[in-house]
């Protein structure tokens, strides 16, 4: 599977790129691929209801002062935060014809990230009813997926060295009573982002091969 490591990409550019690639994938002009990016500070909203707008706790002037943009997306889920130190993966994969199960797809994404955490000696897992990857009652990685004619977009956001303080701007994914964490916070040391990327690519290949 093709992997494109794009580094720091503004959220709207990544969104536009995904939309193009989904059309290309639907038309069969490209194969399955995985985009890996990091975003500048941004809050993204889902499509349901108010998209999680009510879960933004900070007033607009606070967001502006901290250079945090707000974008509407086409993905499922509630409001979430992206920013430096977070590895964001956007798989553009055609689930047709033999992987047509969105639950299985989400569970597979979780599986990739659980394996990455295990590489660092961290026991991560699932919480029934709450999509994402959790360590205890703290969320290590968020998942939000969109499917169009069985082609996937959006994906996962793994906190590597994310400044977790930014999550205080929101109620992450509308779940108020649980916190967030990162690999660095769990390990109590700095973590090399490139190394995490490499591990994500390897496990992604294993799970989705």
């Amino acid at each position: 599977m093709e992997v494109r490591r794009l580094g720091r990409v503004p959220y709207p550019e990544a969104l536009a790129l995904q939309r193009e690639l989904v059309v290309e994938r639907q038309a069969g002009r490209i194969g399955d691929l995985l985009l890996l990016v990091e975003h500048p500070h941004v809050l993204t909203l889902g499509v349901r209801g108010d998209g999680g707008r009510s879960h933004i706790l900070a007033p607009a002037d606070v967001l502006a002062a901290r250079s945090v943009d707000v974008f509407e997306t086409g993905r499922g889920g509630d409001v979430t935060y992206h920013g430096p130190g977070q590895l964001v993966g956007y798989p553009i994969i055609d689930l047709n014809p033999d992987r047509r199960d969105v639950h299985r797809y989400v569970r597979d994404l979780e599986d990739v990230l659980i394996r990455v955490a295990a590489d660092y000696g961290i026991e991560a897992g699932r919480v029934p009813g709450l999509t994402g990857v959790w360590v205890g009652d703290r969320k290590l990685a968020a998942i939000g997926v969109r499917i169009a004619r069985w082609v996937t977009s959006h994906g996962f956001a793994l906190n590597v060295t994310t400044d977790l303080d930014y999550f205080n701007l929101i109620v992450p994914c509308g779940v108020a009573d649980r916190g967030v964490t990162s690999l660095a916070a769990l390990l109590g040391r700095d973590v090399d982002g490139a190394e995490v990327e490499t591990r994500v690519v390897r496990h992604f290949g294993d799970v989705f091969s």
Partner: protein
Amino acid sequence: MATDVVMPQMGESITEGTIVRWMKKVGDRIDRDEPLLEITTDKVDAEVPSPASGIVVQILAKEGETVSVNHVLAVIDAPDAVAGAPAQKAAAVATAPARPAQAPAQPKPAVSMDDAARDRTSPLVRKLAKEHHVDISQIHGTGISGRVTKYDVLDYLEQTGQAAQAGRAGLAKPGDRVEPMSVMRKKIADHMVLSRRTSAHVHTVFEVNFSAIAGIRQAMPAAGKPTYLAFIVAAVARALRAVPVINSSVDGDSVVYHKDINIGVAVALEGGLIVPVIKHADTRDLPDVSAAIADLAGRARTKQLTPEDVAGGTFTVTNPGMLGAQFGTPIINQPQTAILAVGAIEKRPAVVNDALAVQTMAYLALGFDHRIIDGAVADGFMSHVKQALEHWGPEPA
């Protein structure tokens, strides 16, 4: 040939999906594989493409509705089967065969005049009609598009004499307790009715953002910290100076513009209320206003007010928000011409710079005498108050 669009099977363990939004509406043309709607299931959103080209002739599930897999969501029909000319299309769509078992989104047809009238009345009106055993369909509606309003029901009852009967029926049945009014109760009762008869009461409600004041209060030491009410009284005093007609009285055919700004603050007492007056409120600074309110309220509750304390008011502030009211529609304290009711000051979601934020908010309602105060003047006064409170400074220009 009509084609059904069903809730797709998005996975083995998935039995239902929720409709996020429809991208087409009834009557729209759609191509095969063009997205028709979006559904969601457990953090995954999916587009549902149309299985055929044609016209959307039926949409059978609402946005937000959760529907089981394989349930019919919409019907697509070939354009020629619907109609050629656009004018006929609408008619054909309207007469498309109904599917009663699968039509939760279809509006229920009105089955009788009563139902039709009922659909257009508020719960209050229906309750009122039910209490008096009145058939709403018998009442002529004067509201929007012939809607039957509360007043229509009351008028109807008055005409038919039912209101009088209903009103008397509840008085002093066996076992009820009858107690003469206290002197204070009687005075309040007379005063309220007099005021209602005297002034042409109108109310206007402003929402005020108290977040700036909340911040100022937070930074103050706890001892002697001014209450929100003190800020409001001080802001009102300044606004009264700017809009003198609010600080007036009616004397026969004359309007008396008062030189002094004396603000009464209603204090609830057991079995009634009293309105001690802060004299020359516009000449006092915030700590002084705050101390005066605390002093008067304390003495009101311990019954140590002097007649002088309750005389000479030119405007009144009442605080139903203290007990949780969002806003009140107060009756003017005669011979004054306006009264301000302060609603609950509480944290609420509010839009600030196009984003939702938690802000300290309250509704301030002004009751004013429309005989001498025009709506624009009252609202001008209220915007002075709002401005002073939202941009609090020691002495704003």
